[in-house]
């Protein structure tokens, strides 16, 4: 699975970087930069939580 941000929906709340700092970093404007490599298995659970927590539902988990 991979993580993707819908940048149109994203409003820079930053929860994703709080919940998944291993995979998401914020730029200086507060918008997430997400690693587009396949997620390691041990991060999938946290990634799901981060996606569910996104206030604008901009964070998507995509199946390969």
């Amino acid at each position, binding site marked *: 699975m991979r993580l993707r941000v*819908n*940048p149109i929906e994203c409003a820079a709340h930053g929860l994703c970087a709080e919940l998944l700092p291993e995979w998401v970093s914020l730029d200086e404007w507060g918008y997430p930069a997400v690693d587009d490599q396949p997620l390691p298995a041990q991060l999938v659970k946290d990634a799901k939580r981060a996606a569910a927590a996104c206030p604008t539902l901009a964070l998507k988990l995509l199946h390969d």
Partner: protein
Amino acid sequence: MRLLTQSGPTLAEHEAMHGRLTLPPRVQLLDAVEAAGLLGRGGAGFPTARKMRTVGAGKHPAVLGNACEGEPASRKDVQLLTRHPHLVLDGLAVAAAAVGAKDVHLALHADSPALPVLRAALAERRQPVTLHEVPRRYTASEETALISFVNTGTAKPLFTPPRPFEQGIAKRPTLVNNAETLAHLALIARHGPAWFREVGDPEEPGTLLLTVDGAVVEVPSGRPLRQVADLGGKQAVLVGGYFGTWISVAQAHEVTLTHRDLRAAGGALGAGIVLTLPAGSCGLVETARVAAYLANENAGQCGPCFNGLPAIANAVRALAVGPWDEATMVALDRWLGVVPGRGACHHPDGAVRFVLSALAVFAQDVAAHRAGHPCAGAHAASVLPVPRRGAA
């Protein structure tokens, strides 16, 4: 000349020049386009037949002709449309037949001089085509923005997937083709693939419409760039428009007009735009003006773009005309790294690529400006055309 002939714009003149269009059966048409090896002329250079086969395999497909020509330095589509509207309309008929579409659209800028010409041409034909008048913004003619405009009236890029070929107008798989691509289709349907391949580069056959320093020419693909642009007394060449890249004059002397060659040189053929920069101008000042234009033209949707592009444009301006400080240069390097790939569309990627190529090609000027010696060209007349903001 295949597209830009002496023919007048009326249907009678068009048919006197090219003959009447009779549509071959669909399978034959698709095979002909594939055998012709036609690549899309809107910028990306994607094989037209491959797109047609994908769209044609879907349910109730639609066709959208993109005649917006969003690049400010491009004039080729408006020339083609005003001089030979029936070639483009024939092409729409061919594209529709090739994918089996009944739903056919054509998008132009609302202020396009080609709009009345196309209306007159459509009045001469029995061909149901819906015209769309798109606002003149840089990102409005990106293909997902056009789909959004047709569907909702808002011409802003969409998050993908789905791409238009998967889900476009009214959720139908939609073939989006540039106006020049359509005109080539009109001739391939008449004369066949062998005729089409008689001129041009074997891998990217046919003729190309180029806009060279504002003038439109039609040349076989693969022609050396130095034969179509006057490189004497020039310091650099911008290829591919503002979605393209600067290349040095030395590179410009070597390349041919193919996607393959220009990519290898770190450039892009794009929609066939060539702009030469005279020796007396300042490439950084020109780049700063265009960077500011591209920043203003962001769609206001994606944070990395609407924050990053103005920051980048201001930094390039500081680099070009001052006041200069080293922290700005450090920040510029960082922004050029973090902004690309993070928008819904490729607008931020194109703007970053454009600026990066300027920093490489005008590296000596960058060093001079940083050393406190802005060049005399900083006050030379502007070379790159930038539409006034707020112009229709």
